[in-house]
């Protein structure tokens, strides 16, 4: 099974770096959409033996993450008339370096945790952690609200990868709930981004600092 899963995970990791390195918002959104689709694929592959239910979730995830949310975000982007993430708090090259460090940390951290034999040597856990950390890096270093949403999405993607290992613990209902929450969350964020754009004529969240001590 590793033979199929691991390459896909490698793609996800590469997409992480892509997210860290790209300046174009559309590309970033597309990257996260691609991640979403691959995640759906992964879910289907990992649990292909369990039955139709996981497949449904996989499809749902791919649909929401790969299509609905990107569309939402792109619309928001278009409304705001922004295309690029210019002048991030941490430059693109350093971001990539941070991403590399995050990957290394993830690999080490995954080593310290005992896993079931079937997953021994799998990239599942490291990829999950690395994606979460990548999400964090994007969240903390990018100025545009939309990019931050992408970061949040990436973070969620990482957690989703983690969830692949324990599907039986997450029944259908809960899984749907999680996805629904994610969707609503992004939706609400989209609305707020819209308001921010109208109120401040900008999506630069580092300008949102009127509230401080």
């Amino acid at each position, binding site marked *: 099974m590793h033979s199929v899963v691991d390459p896909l995970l490698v793609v996800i990791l590469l997409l992480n770096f892509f997210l860290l390195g790209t300046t174009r918002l559309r590309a970033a959104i597309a990257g996260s959409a691609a991640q979403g689709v691959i995640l759906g694929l992964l879910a289907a592959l990992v649990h292909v033996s369990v039955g139709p239910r996981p497949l449904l979730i996989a499809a749902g995830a791919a649909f929401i993450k790969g299509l609905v949310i990107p569309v939402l975000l792109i619309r928001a982007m278009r409304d705001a008339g922004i295309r690029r993430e210019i002048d991030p708090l941490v430059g693109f090259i350093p971001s990539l370096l941070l991403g590399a460090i995050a990957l290394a940390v993830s690999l080490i951290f995954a080593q310290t945790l005992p896993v079931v034999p079937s997953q021994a040597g799998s990239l599942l856990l490291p990829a999950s952690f690395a994606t979460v950390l990548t999400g964090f890096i994007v969240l903390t270093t990018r100025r545009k609200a939309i990019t931050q949403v992408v970061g949040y999405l990436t973070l969620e993607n990482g957690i989703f990868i983690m969830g692949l290992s324990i599907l039986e613990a997450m029944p259908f209902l809960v899984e749907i709930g999680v996805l629904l929450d994610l969707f609503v969350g992004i939706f609400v964020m989209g609305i707020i981004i819209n308001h921010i754009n109208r109120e401040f004529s900008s999506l630069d969240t580092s300008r949102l*600092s009127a509230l401080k001590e």
Partner: protein
Amino acid sequence: MTVRLLLVAILLTGISGIPGLFFPRKSPLGERVSAVLLGTGCLLGLFSAFACLLPNAAASLEAVWPVPGGAFAIRVDALSTVFLAPIFLLSLLGSIYGLEYWSHADHPRSGPSLRLFWGGLTAALALVVTAQNTLLFLAAWEVTALCNFLALTVEHRHDAEARRAGLIYIIATHAATLALFGMFGVLHAATGGFSWTPLADSAAKNGSTTALFLLAVLGFGTKAGIMPLHVWLPPAHANAPSHVSALMSGVVIKMGIYGLLRVTSLVAHPPIWWGGVVLGLGILSGILGVALALGQHDLKRLLAYHSVENIGIICMGLGLALLGRAEERPELVALGLAGSLFHVWNHGVFKSLLFLGAGAVIQRVGTREMDRLGGLARKMPYTALLFFVGAAAICGLPPLNGFASEFLVYIGLFRAAVEKSGRLWLAGGLGAPALALVGALAVACFAKAYGVVFLGLERTAAPSRAREAGPMMLAPMIVLAGLCFALGGAPAVVAPLLDAAVHEYGGGAPSLLKMAPLNFLSVTALFLLVVVLVLGLYLYLRTRRALPGSIGTWDCGYAAGAARIQYTASSFADSLVRLFAWVLRPLVREPKLTGPFPKPSKFHSETPDVVLDLALVPAIDTTGRAFSWLRWIQLGSIHAYLLYILLTLLVLMLWK
């Protein structure tokens, strides 16, 4: 039965202010109703407090109080009675005084609230000294603090000083209460219960008793106003309505003493250093309290610092009792404790008298600044006479009551001084001269206070328009002045109660009268009185026919500005304050005089509180600045906020 009577008393006083809230604003009926309720309650309370000590009296009561660890358990023992008596007496007298001093006609807005808080304060105080359950104690303690705060800031709208005093008070008292929470926590951990349970000797080994004692000193010491924890006391006493000041000084601060007594009574063999600490703090409070008082220009602030001084004397007695217990000298326990408790009464009596007198002056003249007063003895002769009695009593002058209790402490200290044990005689050897110094300074201070306020010429126009205080204000003062004479002239009457209290505290000494010949004080008082009367009569008869006509004081040929060139409060105390300048750090702004005809300029001197103004406020300011600097944490950037989360996560992951 008797204790139920006390409960009724507590209830009556507690609700006494409530009806007043519902009377129309113009009707003075409310204040009368609440005075009657409070008066009834106080008289009942006084009666039951003593009745509980009779043999066969039911002195304790326990009811369910459904709070974890809580029980409505109250008990009246001799210690409680010693404190209950001044609570009810001073509350009663203060409320009568308040009928005129804070009359409904003058204070239609704040009057009802003040009477509400007054009643609540009285009830809570009574509960504090009878509560057996520690949670009940704490609850009553907090109500006391709150009512006191509200009574103190009742004129908050117009009086910024009172607001500041209230702030300092509430912070200090709250900090003290937190220390008490800690203390009761320790007590709970050591005894497993929520009552005043004696500690086992084993508790001393794991440091429980040490923690208990230190927290008690911190918590109760703050309430009592022991140096250097007294910071709240001067502003609060100075700015409260005067009868509230009287009650605060007379009983509220004594709650700290009560607490210290209760807590130390729980430990069978207190370490010797406890006594040393309490005695040392007592000496410190006594000397610095009176020294600071000397530097004050504000009459009520001066009285407030004398509360610190007298708490110091009380603590010296208490410290001596603790030393006696540590060294197993029952006679020292008895003398120290009896002196301490007797002084609690006496201070309550004469300090209330003084505050009420000061209140009369403030009401009639409108200022507390001593340097604006003067000559009031001719305008308000009765107030002046009564204040004089209080002043003589607080200086510990025979034959008044202050002397009687200080006498007990002195005997105790002298007895300690003849002991073989080096620590004991060191205590006596330091304590007795220190007490003498305190006494001498007090004489100087009250000579200044009485002299500047009541004697000489009016320094400004305000005092010359003053009228004598009314009967409602004079009557309570007359009672208190009478008590000064009675307790000082016949101190032996309180000996049985003090004996019982000492017994309750764990002393097994022979009766007080055997060790301290209080009866002889009565004899000498009488003797002194006779001699004074004889000489006085002689002088009276001889000078009855003084030269007629209007004669001023001989001015040594310099007749200009007689009123203005009098000695003022500041100049009178100047040389003494200078002697203590190394610790008091008085602030003096004097003009530089140049040339033969210097221009008019101003001289200003004040003695700030060493702890509050010179240490605590700067410390708080510095901390505040440091805190302001720390505020960059909340810098408004969401990126930083998210980073905090990540960092916390990483730190916690790496920690374990």
